[in-house]
Structures are given as C-alpha cells and as structure tokens.
C-alpha cells in the first residue's frame, strides 16, 4: 500500500510539472503582452522597458520558466503583476470558499442523483424511470448560467427564502450548492441506475430475498453498497470538473472563490495568478483521482490496484 501511494505521488508530481510547463508555455506564446497591462495606456517606452526588465520578462522562455519553478520549489508562487500581492495569499483567501462550495455541491449531487438513480432502478422501465431519466438528461444539458439565475429569481427574489447572492451564512450556500447539485445529479442518476440494475440481478440479492428479508433492507443494506462503487470513482473525476465548472456559479452568486480570481486574472494576463490557480486546480484533480483509487479497494477488497 505504501509503495502504491509513493508511486502515485511521484506520478502526480510529474503530472503537475507537465501542467505547469504547458500553462507557462501557452501564456508565453499568447499574442498579448502582460507588461502593457501593467504599464497602462499612458506609459512611455522607457517605463515599459523598466517593468519588463524588473519582472524578468525580457529573459528567454527557458530562464523565465526555470525561475518560476525555482520559486515554486521554495513554496513561492510569485506576486500578482497587477495587484502586487503574494499569489499564495490571494489564493488561500479564496480557496476555503471554493472548497466549501465544491463539497456542498457534490453532497447535493449525490443526494439528488443517487435518490433518482435508485428509484429509477427499482421501477425500471416504468413511467417513474422514464421521467427521471428524462429529467436527468435535461439537467445535464442545461446551461449553468440559466439554472443559477432561475433559482436566484424564484427562491431569492420572488419568494425571498434565501439571500440574493453573497457569502457567509449557511443560507447563502443553499442556492449555489443546489445549482451545482441539480446540474451534476444527472450523471450520478444514470450511473447509479445502471449499476443498481446490474446488482439487483445478482445471485446474492436473490438469495437475500429468498431468505425472506424485507425488500427495503435488501436494497439499502445489500444492493446499495455494492452498486455504489462506480459512483465513488465518479466523485474523484467530478472534483476536476468542479474546479473548472464553478466559475460561472461563483460569478452569478457572488461567491468569493478562486474561479472569480482566475477569470479576472485571465482578462488582464496576470500570469502569476493564472499559473497559481491552474496549479491549485490541477492539484485538486490529481488528489481527487488519487483518493478515488485509494478508497475503492478499501470498500471492495476484490479490487487491487497495482
């Protein structure tokens, strides 16, 4: 097990290195000059040249990248070009909000998605199943912006049950999490349904039923734990999707996460922030996958990862 974790950590580090290189390179070849953004429209050529030299942006790509990596190994993600503040501090100030929203969003997805999936599997082929699968298809296809604004309009503006955007209390969390939950639940519903149908056909379920166990107990105690495996793997992948996907939801609800930070930095080519957010997101994806790989064998001893 320890060897496995060690090997996986090495692999993860290599992936992160690759991500950092590709992002840095893409920003380098971008036909836009970060120095112009810092220097502003009234700058003299001398000011532009001074800033370029101070930031080391006059150096060749290899030197710039090597310097960035050297900083990274010392735990220094650099300073924002435009905000003139430590990138680490900016990200750390916003990361808790993003993680909280992500956790709440995944919880909402699971509650909605698994319930839908189990119900659909039990009554497969019936009206309930068809309408639930239809719903999951609609929610998966719906644009985030529309669902977010719709929920905001109905539950916050019209009914006044929740605050109109913002951050701070559990009430603020409900609508953004629900938006993410509704949008992502369709995937879980479909995976859960097919996995459940498969398990319900298995011999041990028939045995359990034959022993005279209550149907409810068979489904919850025997079928569900066995059917849930693919879902756990899905959560790991979902973390990655979330890191990219909550930008819009954060925007609509005024949620102070790293998505907002990244969006603004991209507009102004604030390279240290773009790099920082990309690396943090990549870390989350790598960790999510790693966790899924490690947790699945714990639940099901039949699976061994080598």
């Amino acid at each position: 097990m320890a060897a496995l974790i060690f090997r996986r950590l090495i692999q993860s580090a290599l992936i992160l290195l690759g991500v950092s290189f590709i992002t840095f390179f893409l920003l380098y070849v971008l036909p836009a000059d970060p120095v112009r953004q810092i220097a502003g429209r009234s700058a003299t050529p001398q000011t532009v040249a001074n800033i370029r030299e101070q930031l080391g942006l006059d150096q060749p790509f290899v030197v710039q990248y090597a310097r960035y990596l050297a900083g990274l190994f010392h735990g220094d993600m650099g300073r924002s070009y435009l905000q003139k503040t430590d990138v680490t501090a900016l990200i750390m100030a916003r990361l808790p909000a993003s993680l909280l929203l992500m956790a709440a969003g995944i919880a909402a997805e699971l509650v909605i998605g698994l319930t839908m999936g189990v119900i659909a599997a039990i009554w497969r082929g019936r009206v309930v199943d068809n309408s639930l699968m239809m719903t999951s298809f609609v929610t998966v296809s719906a644009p985030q912006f529309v669902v977010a604004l719709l929920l905001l309009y109905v539950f916050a503006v019209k009914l006044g049950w929740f605050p109109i955007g913002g951050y701070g209390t559990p009430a603020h969390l409900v609508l953004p999490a629900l938006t993410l939950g509704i949008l992502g639940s369709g995937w879980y519903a479909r995976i859960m349904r097919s996995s459940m149908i498969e398990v319900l056909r298995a011999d041990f379920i028939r045995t359990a039923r034959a022993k005279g166990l209550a149907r409810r107990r068979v489904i919850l105690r025997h079928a569900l734990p066995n059917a849930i495996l693919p879902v756990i793997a899905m959560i790991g992948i979902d973390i990655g999707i979330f890191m990219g996907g909550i930008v819009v939801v954060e925007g609509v609800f005024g949620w102070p996460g790293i998505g907002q930070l990244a969006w603004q930095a991209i507009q102004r080519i604030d390279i240290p922030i773009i790099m920082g957010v990309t690396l943090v997101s990549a870390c989350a994806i790598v960790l999510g996958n790693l966790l899924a790989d490690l947790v699945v064998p714990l639940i099901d001893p039949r699976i061994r990862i080598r």
Partner: protein
Amino acid sequence: MKKLLVSTALIAALALPAFAQETLDPNAKPGGGIVVTYKDDVATLDPAIGYDWQNWSMIKSLFDGLMDYIPGTTELRPGLAESYDVSADGMTFTFHLRKGVKFHNGREMTADDVKYSLDRVTLPATQSPGAGFFGAIAGYDAMADGSATSLAGVTVIDPATVEIKLSRPDATFLHVMALNFASVVPKEAVEAANGDFGKMPVGTGAFKLQEWTIGQKLVFAKNPDYWRAGLPYLDTVTFEVGQEPIVALLRLQNGEVDVPGDGIPPAKFQEVMGDPAQAANVVEGGQLQTGYITLNVKIPPLDNVEVRKAINMAINKDRIVQIINGRAVPANQPLPPSMPGYTKDYKGYEYNPEAAKKMLADAGLPDGFETELYVMNTDPNPRIAQAIQQDLAAIGVKASIQSIAQANVIEAGGAGTAPMIWSGGMAWIADFPDPSNFYGPILGCSGAADGGWNWSKFCDPAIDAEAAAADSMIDPAAPERLKMWSDVYMKVMEQAPWVPVFNEQRFTLKSARMGGADNLYVDPVSIPVNYDYVYVKE
C-alpha cells in the same frame, strides 16, 4: 507672479483656521451608509498603481493630492495645497500646504510627504502606470533611467512649502497634480506595508479603509479628522465585489444595494428606463469619452487619405447609437463635447455612402478592397462591429471581423498589425479634463511608436509641433490655447486617421434613499459617484 487662488484661500484661513471652507449641502444629513457593488474584485488601492475606473474614485476618497476638482465639475481647486504661486515663465510652482492635515494614522502631513510621494511614483521600482505624467518635472529623466532616486526639481522649502521646478512648460501640470498618481502618502505606512500598500492604504482622504475581506467586500469608514469640515456625510461606504450586474440590479430593486457600480446591464436598460419609478432614480450625464474606429495609415490602401475620408462617410453613426439603446451621442471629432477645446461649429464627414463609393472609385478602387476590423469580444462591441461591417460592405469594402480578447486587440493595435480597430471597451476616457489628453498618446507621434496606443500609427510632425506649442502656454484655460487645440483636432480630421463614432453617455442608477445634487452622480472625475459628497435621506 501669478496668484490665482490666494484670495479664496485667505478667506478660508480667516473663517476656519485649521480647515478648508466648504459649501455644505443644507439638505444633507450626516450619518448612515451605502452599499456599492462591483463584479470585479478591487485590484489595488495604492494611488501610485491604481488605474482602472473602479479603483479611481475609491482612491480619490482615501487620498488627496495638492490639487483637486470642484465636485461634479471639471474645474480645478486647491486640495492639500491651500494656495500656490506660479513663476512668470510658468516653470516654477510653489505650493503652500494646509496646516493641521492628518493622515489616517494620526501623523500630520508635511512637505516631506509631498516630496516622498512624487519620488515614489516616478521611481521605476514602483512600476507606476502614471509615472510618465510627471515627465515635465525637472529631474524626471534621471529617475526614469535609474540614475537618481529623488526628483531634482522637487524641493522642500519648509514643512508647509514645496517648490516644483519644471524642465519644460506644461499647461496641464496642475491637472497632473490632481491625478490620483500625485496623491500624498505617508512614508512610514508604505514601508510598514512591506510592498502591500495597495491592500493597506493610509491617506488623508475623507474615508479610511476599515475592513477588506478579499473577494467579498471592502468597508470605508468616515475619517472623523477630515480636513474639509463637515465632510463626508456618510459614515460608511461598503463595496461588495463579485456581484454580476444583473444580480446587483435585482438587489437594488430589493432595497439591498444603493449604487450598482457596473451600471445598468445593457439587456435591462430599456426595461429600467421604461419604468417611470426606476427611471426617476437614473441620472444621465456626459463623460469625457470618445468611441472611434482607427484606420492604420501605414497599411495600404488606408495609407491614402481619400480612402480614409470615404470610410468616414460610409459609417452610419445613428444606427450604431441605436444598437446601444441610445446610450451615446454621435461624434464627429476626437474630443467629446464637454471637453474644453471642442469645435462646436464643425460638421464632420456627412454620412453619404454614394459619395463615399465614388471617392473610392476616384482613388482607383472601384471594386473596393478587403481588410480586417479588430474588435474586443464583449457585448455590445461585436454587434457594433457587424454594423460597421455592413456599412463598409455597402461601399464595396469587405471587412472580416477579428473578435478577440481585449489584451490581444491592444497588442495588435500597438504592434500596428491591425488595419482597422473598433475602440469599444478600450476607448479613450480622459485622465484629466484637458484637450491635450486626447492627442499625445492616441494621435501624436509619441503614441505611434511600437506598442503605443496610437493605433492608426498617425504621425504628422507639423501637428505635433502645434500641440507642443499649445502645451507650453501657462494657463490651461486660456482662450488662445483652446483655439490652438481646436485647430490641432481640425487638422487631424483633415487627415482622417479615425472615424469618430460616438460619445458615450453615463447612466448612474441609485437607490431612492440617496441624496445630493445630480452632478455628483455623473461626476466627470469620480465614477460612478463622488462618495465624499453624497448622502442618504432617511
């Protein structure tokens, strides 16, 4: 010696020895707080760095410079300087500072702080986007090339007097001293912030920063020791960031927000203006802005002035104004109408596609030509570009639209690779209310250098010389100077490096409980509102 404002300053000194005289609004009630929203987070509150329309007015309320503007107008008035003298040749300014002005940290502001602040903003290590504005101060060049660490032209005479010597006459110098970049900052607070002054600002302004939760909100609290007696009226201004304009509007309608800083969302504009109850809370005003199409004079066939004139005559400006719901007025020259030096009786190029087509034929292009139009990719700019494309097609010019991110358009414009650029989203808004500000960087030879903002790469040394002569005059508002500037822009229009399209109007939406004169809500210097002078009625 010219003593422009000494008399008013003397009256002030007699009436209130330690404070400036201030005409207070008799209807204003002190107290209360307002909520202002923005989509983007505030990048910095360092007056040497901040250069976007969001932090500009915030910094104005936290800091003061030697000069200032009468609220709601473009008229200069003394700020931290009680009065000033100008030498006969216009090359030496002596500023007499107000006594008893305190920084938010409690220390009294002195002449040393003024010198420190000007040194700091011009020091290359500060990376100030505004450093170039101080180019006329003696010793600036030595600062810019790193051979000096202090401006030779700025001398502390005594704790209440600063003398600034210029290396060349500069009619705009007093406007420059009213820019945020010239704000007076305390050295010890800058050093204590250890590079993070933009997040821990300390000034002499009407408000001080009380709280900043990154990504969520900033709270400005009233400075009880503010040197303008009786101001500000508000106890707090809360800036909530990360709020979509559409959400901000819903919250305003719900009574939770007082001023949506990003304005009325374009998609909701007609709905708001069509509802009398909401429209009553909208204040409309002009702004010192012009939207234009640049025609690159280095790229054939746009190097032919007749072709550029034909394009000027092909654009239907009224239709473009309709596209943005009438939130602008058509323009015919670079300067906006409210700018001194604007030429009122100039008619511009008339909209006449037939004549334009004929001019193209006379220029040897009877079948038109193919070109590219660069545009920033946010609404409504691509829609405006399509209208321009259709207008051009009507005279046989086939323009393909390059709709790309702002930074990429700026890059292409600076490099001179873009034949035509629609300036929307990046259009010139004046740094200060003087006609010279629309020339140098965007139409003069200095801006035509690689990377400059003169995207048509237009450079006429004769016009440049006239502009320089106009700026060597001492009084910025002298009629003969404004006449010269009017002349400069008329000569520019004869060469037609731009198609001036429109001047955007400002529409500020506020909550019904907000009070204060309308011009505070369309203040040409403080966008969206002048926080120091507005108040709440309840």
